[in-house]
């Protein structure tokens, strides 16, 4: 298909990169996939899968001194668990300029597969309102596509990945190609029945997740075994990960070359052809630099890392990125504020004879209900939030010591139902990622510097969520209702997005409606960096859909000789 060693280079092997590799190889392209992390093979490299606490160092808790020195950001992604730590970035070895801007928690993985091994697996579609919001309320750049453009691609990735969920018929949280949902427990059913009766229109539904409830023998994957230890890796392949799903598919084509430990530092750009001609790498172990060449490049390094790579890809003789003719590169950085929490208990005695058998890898979800049909008259903010939670029954709290305490700890306390809120963050031009002027990492790459803050709209929204949350818990018949708004630190929800936002106008956006750089038509940016707004739902499923769609378009363009 081309004069290059590879038809395509995929940078990154997480949720987006894995899909890019699968789609491109299955469409006949010879693909090189690069990841800066170490190799993790499915099954064999999940050392703590299925281990008891007593079999884990420090019974599963990373020593705090080590967390503080080496995992100061990735601790917010699970590095405090010894079973997860080695999947995460070592922030001491691979730092960013965390001290030089307002606090931004950049949680990174350190492995092939990226965050697809440790992600939360919640898989929700953006709704039609999400693609029109920017254009309607004037924040950020209007999306160059609408829901109908992406809907078939959601179906495509859902069917393959295996998403469990219930069809609810909600316009703003569209249904998809679902396996049966994970069953609700008695506390969740209790809350659902009462909430939906007390507040007509309000919904409490099983969370839609990429943990399968039916086998996919054709992919060698089994349904969820209710261990809920997903972030240690799952040999059953019960949840979507690169290792379990997209990598085997790409490998089966015999068209994939996967190289771990390859740090992509920048892209080589030819201003005459307006194309990227090479991908510059440094081997993380040997420090040997190398440039790989291909006809097209899929940039899927994770939202912020893709920004960093683009920002570091300078026009010759300039300190300006080739991808930044618009001046929009690295702008509109977003995350979901998530630390409004609310909960309540079932009244004493209710379902006291019942407990949970097995561990469900998910819970329940209250879809967005604010500003759905136009602006709510009592809302002092635009857009909305969703609430993610679940019902549980924990061990009773036993006081004292001795045989009576031991006996007390054989009992369960009350059923509780609790949630945290994910709010939509508006795209702000001056919420940025830039390159630090002086600080570089051990590969000579300027460190990422974040200037990202939540503003008035996010604060008002999350305060409203606390009020509404308390109201809903009471309406659901729960007692001991508790609601709190904790400080929201950008990065916390690990849903960082933006910086290479899609738009129609090359003067105000970085990528076009096909995730293609306006400034280099052979580069497709398909991770979270290309999203023009965040919706309030967890975004990974959307990265999958955009990646599959862009790969389809890219291959057609290559075959047509356009790129």
């Amino acid at each position, binding site marked *: 298909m081309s004069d290059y060693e590879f038809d395509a280079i995929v940078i990154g092997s997480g949720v987006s990169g894995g899909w890019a590799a699968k789609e491109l190889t299955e469409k006949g392209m010879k693909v090189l996939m690069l990841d800066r992390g170490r190799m993790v093979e499915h099954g064999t490299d999940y050392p703590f899968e299925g281990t008891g606490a007593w079999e884990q160092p420090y019974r599963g808790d990373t020593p705090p001194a080590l967390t503080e020195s080496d995992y100061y950001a990735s601790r917010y992604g699970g590095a405090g668990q010894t079973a997860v730590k080695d999947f995460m970035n070592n922030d001491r070895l691979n730092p960013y300029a965390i001290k030089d801007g307002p606090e931004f928690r950049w949680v990174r993985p350190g492995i092939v597969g990226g965050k697809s091994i440790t992600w939360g697996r919640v898989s929700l579609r953006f709704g039609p309102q999400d693609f029109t919001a920017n254009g309607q309320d004037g924040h950020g750049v209007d999306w160059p596509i609408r829901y109908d453009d992406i809907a078939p691609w959601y179906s495509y990735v859902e069917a393959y990945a295996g998403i469990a969920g219930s069809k609810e018929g909600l316009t703003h949280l569209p249904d998809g190609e679902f396996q049966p949902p994970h069953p609700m427990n008695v506390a969740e059913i209790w809350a659902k029945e009462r909430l939906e009766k007390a507040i007509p229109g309000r919904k409490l539904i099983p969370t839609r997740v990429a943990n399968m409830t039916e086998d996919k023998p054709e992919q060698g994957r089994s349904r969820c075994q209710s261990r809920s230890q997903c972030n240690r890796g799952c040999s059953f392949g019960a949840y979507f990960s690169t290792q379990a799903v997209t990598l085997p598919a790409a490998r089966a084509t015999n068209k994939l070359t996967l190289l771990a430990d390859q740090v992509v530092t920048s892209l080589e750009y030819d201003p005459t052809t307006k194309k990227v001609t090479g991908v510059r790498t440094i081997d993380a172990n040997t420090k040997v630099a190398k440039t790989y060449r291909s006809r097209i490049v899929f940039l899927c390094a994770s939202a912020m890392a893709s920004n960093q790579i683009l920002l570091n890809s300078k026009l010759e003789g300039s300190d300006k990125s080739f991808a930044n003719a618009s001046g929009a590169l690295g702008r509109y950085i977003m995350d979901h504020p998530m630390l409004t929490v609310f909960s309540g208990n079932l009244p004493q005695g209710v379902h006291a004879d*019942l407990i949970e058998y097995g561990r469900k890898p998910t819970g329940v979800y209250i879809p967005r209900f604010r500003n759905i049909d136009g602006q709510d008259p009592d809302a002092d903010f635009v857009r909305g939030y969703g609430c993610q939670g679940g019902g549980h029954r924990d061990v009773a709290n036993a006081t004292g010591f001795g045989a009576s*305490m031991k006996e007390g700890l054989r009992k369960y306390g009350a059923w509780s139902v609790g949630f945290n809120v994910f709010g939509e963050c508006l795209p702000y031009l001056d919420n940025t990622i830039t390159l630090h002027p002086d600080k570089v990492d051990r590969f000579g790459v300027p460190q990422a510097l974040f200037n990202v803050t939540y503003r008035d709209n996010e604060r008002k929204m999350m305060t409203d969520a606390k009020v509404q949350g308390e109201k809903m818990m009471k309406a659901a018949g729960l007692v001991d209702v508790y609601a709190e708004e904790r400080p929201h630190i950008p990065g916390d929800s690990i849903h960082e997005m933006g910086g290479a936002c899609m738009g129609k106008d090359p003067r105000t956006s970085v990528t076009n409606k096909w995730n293609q750089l306006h400034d280099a038509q052979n580069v497709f940016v398909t991770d979270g960096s290309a999203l023009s707004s965040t919706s309030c739902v967890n975004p990974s499923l959307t990265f999958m859909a955009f990646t599959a769609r862009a790969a389809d378009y890219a291959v057609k363009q290559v075959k047509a000789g356009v790129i």
Partner: protein
Amino acid sequence: MAHDHNPLLDPQRLDRRSLLTGILAMVGGVAIAPIARAMQAGMDPGYTVEKPYMTDDQRKLTAAVSERIIPTTDTPGAIAAGVPAFIEMMLSEWYWQDERDLVMGGLTAINAFAQTTYGKPFAGATPVQQDAILTLAMDKQLTGAPADAFEHLRQMVIFGYYSSEIGCTIERVYLPVPGRYDGAYPYADVNRVFSS
């Protein structure tokens, strides 16, 4: 460095574990595996204290206190579950200095009170005397003990016990691969807590 050391990857430990399995097989295959392991558990807390932190007397004291907090009943207690060694390991390798001082300060005060009041170290006191001292500590009435010391110690014993193999598999019911989820399961069918 100690923090990077992964006991699971320690070949000596693996050898020791296989050896243990061999011994049990020789003794006879009739014992239920977790019970058999419990018999040995005092010898095998699941790790080695690499950087000893306590004197022998402090170890005896820690063991005695742990066993009173979670005693042997119809299931093994804290000593069988390896809790004392767990506490020493955590103090040595995991805790910050102020937390070490808190716990050791509490233990020291407990022992000093036993010596003064009963004329013998805590480990040598009767269970009734031991419980009286621990009750004082719990009520923050123990001379010389940091106020939060007992609660901290109590939490360490609880965590150490219920995260041990005995705690997870004998005291509680361990489901490594449940295979299904039931959100309306009768407690009466198990009468215990599921560990994870």
